[in-house]
């Protein structure tokens, strides 16, 4: 099997050809191939991406899938069959204390590995259905840095995109709403609760003004972290959109645990009917 991986990062385009004798021998193959070595990152990010793509490309074989004994991602991504979907409401799960911390932590790798492999098989097959039988033989990807998955509370100026301090957030937000209040001929506390007022008092506030002006708020809450998170966007034989208009095939990687891991497996956008026919 021949697999071409094209990587774009920071407006640079690097092309490599990895000759894969074995689907799961990417490390050995990379070491033996000087072209591939050129694009291997010092921190293992590129290796992780390529390994995951190769895993998905080969998971169509049920025998291989059933041998899965490791989790290749924290969350498996989207499936296409009911086997990938939840079977209970969150209310039922909470009543049964499924989210009790001890039970969450005891949710073992072994118990989840088969499920993750099943989902990966569905992803593999969907790509073939959408892009053809050879889709996995020529995969290219681009990286897009996105907001951290987890971290501490951060504040951002929406116009500049820059992070600001908590005190700047408070002051900019307060100034914005003070100006709105003046414009509307009311006071700030006609719109919002004072610190010592209970939420029960919201019924007396001018929520219509909050609703009217909230889209123009100049600052926002966000999550900040020293870790990096990337969305890895895939193309199959150069195509990012299938004939049936499936698009945005990507997975999410991050290094918040000190090494690069796949946080969420493959996901995509299925055509979205704005105005469905029928009842």
């Amino acid at each position: 099997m021949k697999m071409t991986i094209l990587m774009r990062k920071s407006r640079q385009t690097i092309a490599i050809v990895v000759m894969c004798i074995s689907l799961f021998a990417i490390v050995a193959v990379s070491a033996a191939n000087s072209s591939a070595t050129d694009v291997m990152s010092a921190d293992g990010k590129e290796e992780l991406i390529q390994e995951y793509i190769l895993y998905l490309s080969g998971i169509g074989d049920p025998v291989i899938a059933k041998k899965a004994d490791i989790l290749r991602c924290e969350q498996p991504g989207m499936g296409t069959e009911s086997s990938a979907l939840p079977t209970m409401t969150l209310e039922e799960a909470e009543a049964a204390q499924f989210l009790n911390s001890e039970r969450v932590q005891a949710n073992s790798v072994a118990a989840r590995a088969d499920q993750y492999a099943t989902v990966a098989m569905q992803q593999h097959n969907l790509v073939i259905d959408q892009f053809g039988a050879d889709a996995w033989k020529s995969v290219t990807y681009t990286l897009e840095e996105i907001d951290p998955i987890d971290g501490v509370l951060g504040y951002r100026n929406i116009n500049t995109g820059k992070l600001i301090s908590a005190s700047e957030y408070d002051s900019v937000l307060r100034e914005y709403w003070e100006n709105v209040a003046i414009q509307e001929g009311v006071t700030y506390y006609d719109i919002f609760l004072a610190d010592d007022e209970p939420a029960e008092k919201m019924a007396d506030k001018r929520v219509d003004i909050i609703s009217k002006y909230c889209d123009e708020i100049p600052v926002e809450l966000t999550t900040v972290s020293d870790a990096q998170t990337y969305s890895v966007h895939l193309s199959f034989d150069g195509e990012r959109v299938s004939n049936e208009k499936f698009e945005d095939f990507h997975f999410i990687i991050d290094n918040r645990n000190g090494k690069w891991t796949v946080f969420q497996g493959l996901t995509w956008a299925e055509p979205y009917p704005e105005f469905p026919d029928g009842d």
Partner: protein
Amino acid sequence: MKKSVFYYLLTLCMMISMLSLPSFAVETSNFAVSATSSNFNIVLSNISKTGATSSSPGTNITKAVIGKSIDPGYAMIKLSDLQYLGATTQVLGNHYYVTINGQVITFTKGSTYYSSETPYTINKPAGGTKSYTFSVNGNTESTAQAQEIDGVPYVRLTHAVHQCGALIVNYNSSDNSTYVFHFRVNGSSPHSDSNTYIVGGSWLNSWSSKGTTQLAPNFKVNELWYSSTTGTYNRQLKISLASLQTEENVRYYYNDDSSINVTSGFRTWQGNYGTGGADMRSLHMRGRAIDATSGTTQTLYNNVYNEFKGDSSTPINGGSISWYSRVYGTSRSLSGAYDLEKMPHNGSWWVHLGVKPEYSAAM
């Protein structure tokens, strides 16, 4: 003495953090040492029919985030992650404000109580306007109050996302993930929808008593909620102002309350799945459609059709599988883009009145 214990706990937490080890067991809020918490994955998803079952929609255009489970097992979501449902979030002093589709949801740090206010105005077909504020409130469990965990504001997941208009929230023990299905989810950039929605359900206090609340001069809550399920989704309601305005107009134009009998307003996921001939992304689940009958459905259809035929002077014949006769157009007198369908099923007939998602009643 208490200060001394707190000091040592804080020092211990800092040492753990510096060693890059995962912290566990001790989580603090501004008000109390809260219960033990663990990370779990939350998958925010749009609704797909691919692989869907009676208990869950298929996933589409997802956005995965990390939540906290609070013992004895309640799910919490970061306040800021509600942005992926299309909400705007703010922290002003002790209060958290979530604004989405005309609705203002307020949480108070350290309190189990939350409230929601939705102000809107109905244009009266006879002229003039009437203003309403749809007010509801609820309480979370005591350990699952709105709170800061490691300095990050969290709110009770079920209450927050349901009130933000999520269709259904499920848990999958196979991947330790909670799935929040909401029609605005679109990866990191939610679909735009400027319409106001009136939202409610059993997660609120005394919700069942809200049935007689007047939503418009000629419409009450209990005509539009879904009432034949139990549990979380018993009497769930989500109705767009555009749809409510349309229904009010139709009822006004064609006589009075008796001229239009709503047989299906908002539909839950399970309710829609069990409805024969229903589309799995039906406008009913998006708060944008009603089914109605009258003494003579044909008369109702003909009368409404005359208002709806704008773009399509000839009804489209969809055959016997879905709609029998369909008009998709813009009406001058009803001021909007509508979908009017006359449906056959099991020998009965009804009119399906839908409103285009991008159409806002703010006109």
